[in-house]
């Protein structure tokens, strides 16, 4: 039970920090809405629905990267991550707490993004919502691990997208597939499997990322 109490305390801390600064959430919402608006003007009127779903997933992916770039900003300042790493709690709790906070920020940004998508492009279906939820879990799992790796580097703004984009391609494939396919269950299952594999890998490897 201590483990989940630690995770809860760490996630609440991130939400409290965000409530005070509103830096991450606001920039994510502004970015995703602005991107959808630009897409709505740049696409020809006769564009097929499939293309607009593809653009939505591109916008969501880059919004996630924007949020993840800032995920360890507070820890980077004054080396707070060192303080957390020295605590006797399981270090994977730091990853899980942060990943839960990232999921919350993504979900909040999508609460604005999906109605905006429905307004400018196509209706939001339950398959799309399910795919977005599963994609959030996968992006948060792998993205939090990579954000912690990138946080130690001076070129973190460059390093994170370079590391994350190749690993996020299956999420985009699964997300677009679930949005437009006649058999969305297959793609949703694929996304769930991705989440499971990367959550276990990230959970198990976080300790080695934050220690020498």
């Amino acid at each position, binding site marked *: 039970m*201590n483990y989940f*109490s*630690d995770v809860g*305390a*760490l996630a609440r*801390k991130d939400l*409290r*920090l965000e409530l*005070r*600064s509103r830096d991450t959430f606001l920039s994510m919402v502004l970015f995703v809405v602005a991107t959808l608006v630009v897409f709505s003007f740049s696409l020809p009127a006769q564009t097929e629905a499939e293309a607009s779903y593809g653009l939505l997933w591109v916008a969501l992916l880059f919004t996630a990267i924007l949020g993840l770039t800032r995920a360890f900003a*507070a820890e980077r*300042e*004054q*080396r*707070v991550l*060192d*303080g*957390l*790493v*020295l*605590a*006797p*709690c399981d270090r994977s709790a730091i990853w899980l707490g942060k990943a839960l906070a990232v999921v919350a920020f993504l979900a909040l940004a999508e609460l604005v993004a999906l109605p905006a998508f429905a307004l400018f492009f196509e209706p939001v279906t339950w398959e799309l919502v399910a795919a977005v939820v599963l994609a959030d879990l996968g992006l948060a799992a792998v993205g939090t691990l990579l954000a912690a790796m990138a946080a130690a580097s001076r070129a973190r703004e460059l390093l994170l997208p370079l590391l994350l984009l190749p690993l996020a391609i299956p999420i985009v494939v699964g997300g677009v597939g679930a949005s437009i396919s006649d058999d969305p269950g297959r793609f949703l299952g694929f996304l769930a499997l991705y989440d499971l594999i990367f959550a276990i890998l990230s959970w198990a490897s976080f300790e080695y990322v934050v*220690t*020498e």
Partner: protein
Amino acid sequence: MIRARGLGRSFGTKRVLRGLDLDVAERDVLVVTGPNGSGKSTLLALCAGLLAPTAGELEIEVERGRLGYLAHEPLVYRELTALENLELYGRLYRVPERRERIGMLLERFDLWEARHERVSTYSRGMQQRLALCRTLLHDPDLLLLDEPYAGLDEAGGVLLDGELAALAGERTLVVSTHEPERIARLATARLALA
């Protein structure tokens, strides 16, 4: 409690520590001195387990949760209050009677009145006092204090003198400082890095 043999640490091509042998027994007070760049902070980070040696051996006979580490930075969130920071660390360190312990430390380090203010509004000296509260919160067996007097005013320095005097003989202390005369009477061993 600490045993180092031929300890070395390099950052890229730069060697910061080289061939260091060190023995620190339980309840010793080791004072580490040396000019800037001599490796004092690196030695303490190695002892804390935050860095790995690039040469030699280092054994620390204390669990991670029984170690208190004071770094150059206070290792607290700037946008949380002192109370929120200590609550978080108190949970993670499983401090018994956490609230009472936090209240006692904040009172002792004269931060009680400012406990609901964000750390970003604190002066350097207040941040250092909060860092000391964080370091002592879980009543550690081994204290690694990197420049503990940095940023403290005269009153803060006197307060810390008293704290260290109370801890000496009860806990193991490794203190790196540019003011060794302040804790000279407590020291059981000295290490001068060049």
